[in-house]
């Protein structure tokens, strides 16, 4: 009985943890997939796998990177399994930009659009680093790249965004 109660409490605690991290997880999946519906699929599968594998998580402090790692794999698996139709980038950017444009904080619209337009090889490590909090070495391990390659990709990603975000005056002062 006592063990069952303890198990229930642990379940509840883990459940709260997942609830707290879900918004970040949805954002992470969204920026990976660039599609809200696909992101929802990824998050669902991630939460199910996380729930079932919660005993594998030894350090609850690492739960965020653990969840994001599962989500990244789920995203890759979903594409592999469903062979989702490829969408022309312009069409995707227009569709998602419309969706983003109706968000209240429209001031980030151009930058979001630029992030969405980044090639996967640049967007993925950037999102892993900024949203997921992964170190460059962790990103390198997950993407099977050298750390130097990750640094280069992050540098290129930010420089592409810099060209969009910064004004010409900013660049001129350089």
């Amino acid at each position, binding site marked *: *009985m006592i063990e*069952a109660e303890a198990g229930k409490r642990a*379940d*509840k605690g*883990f*459940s*709260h943890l*997942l*609830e707290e991290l*879900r*918004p970040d997880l*949805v*954002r992470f999946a*969204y*920026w990976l997939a660039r*599609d*809200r*519906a696909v992101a*929802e699929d990824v*998050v*669902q*599968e991630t*939460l*199910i796998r996380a*729930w*079932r594998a919660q005993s594998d998580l030894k350090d609850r402090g690492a739960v965020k990177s653990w969840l994001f790692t599962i989500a990244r794999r789920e995203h890759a698996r979903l594409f592999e399994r469903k062979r989702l139709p490829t969408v022309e980038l312009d069409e995707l950017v*227009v*569709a998602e930009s*419309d*969706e*983003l*444009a*109706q*968000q*209240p*904080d429209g001031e*980030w619209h151009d*930058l*979001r659009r630029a*992030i969405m337009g980044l090639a996967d090889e640049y967007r993925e490590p*950037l*999102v892993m*680093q*900024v*949203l997921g909090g992964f170190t*460059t070495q962790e990103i390198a391990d997950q993407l099977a790249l050298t750390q130097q390659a*990750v*640094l*280069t990709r*992050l*540098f*290129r990603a*930010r420089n592409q*965004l*810099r060209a969009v*975000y*910064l004004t010409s005056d*900013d660049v001129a*002062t*350089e």
Partner: protein
Amino acid sequence: MTESTTNNSSASAYDCQQARLCIGAEPTVVPEVLANHLRDCESCAAYQRQMLRLEHAITRALAVPVAQTMAMDEARRRSGGFESGDNLAARRPPERATQARVPFARLALAASLVLAVTIGILLWAARPDQSLAADVVAHIEGEAASWRSTATVPDSALALVLRKSGIELAPGAVVSYAQSCWFRGKFVPHLVVQSARGPVTVMILPGEYSAARERFDEAPYTGVIAPVQGGSVAVLARDGVGDVDAVLENFLVALKPPAAR
């Protein structure tokens, strides 16, 4: 543009190219070797300030609003677990609460099951379509935020949601919420339409057949499930607000069944 020359200082082990790679890759990390370079190179220091500003903006831009979605509810249902809070006890079937009891309790449980099955059959016979309405209501309750949306969903976003279910709508409805939701084993469009008297939820349910138009009242929701070609459409109002019938009639006209495309 005044960049420092490559490795021209014993205090700066980085040249400008290395410094900028380091800044661009990790703007918030300043190892000592980079700090040394920045002290000597105003151009790279300016670049770093720009990149920190950009980093702040990227962080904000990535933080897209997250709508209330079905992800948690659906994942809970499919995994058979991770309910949070007090809902767990409320939603858990009675037999789960008695699992740890003695054998007598098992006998009682078996008798209860027989009774429950009998009652279930009777209820099913009496109200065959009620479970669909109940499932729709349960789903709607899991997406309470959908009622609060007021901005019109762009046609392109709506089309994406509908396309996932192979559905098309004639233009006209003012849709303020559109999600493709997992419902009874498939993705279905979950929409909120702004009617003259307030928001009304519409769920298009391919493969969910109903013999005739069925009204239901599951406080605070009232609505109707109507048969359409290839399935049903459910239209609900909350707290009696919203023109359910008007929205339903509009949808029956606007809905293009697969065969018509």
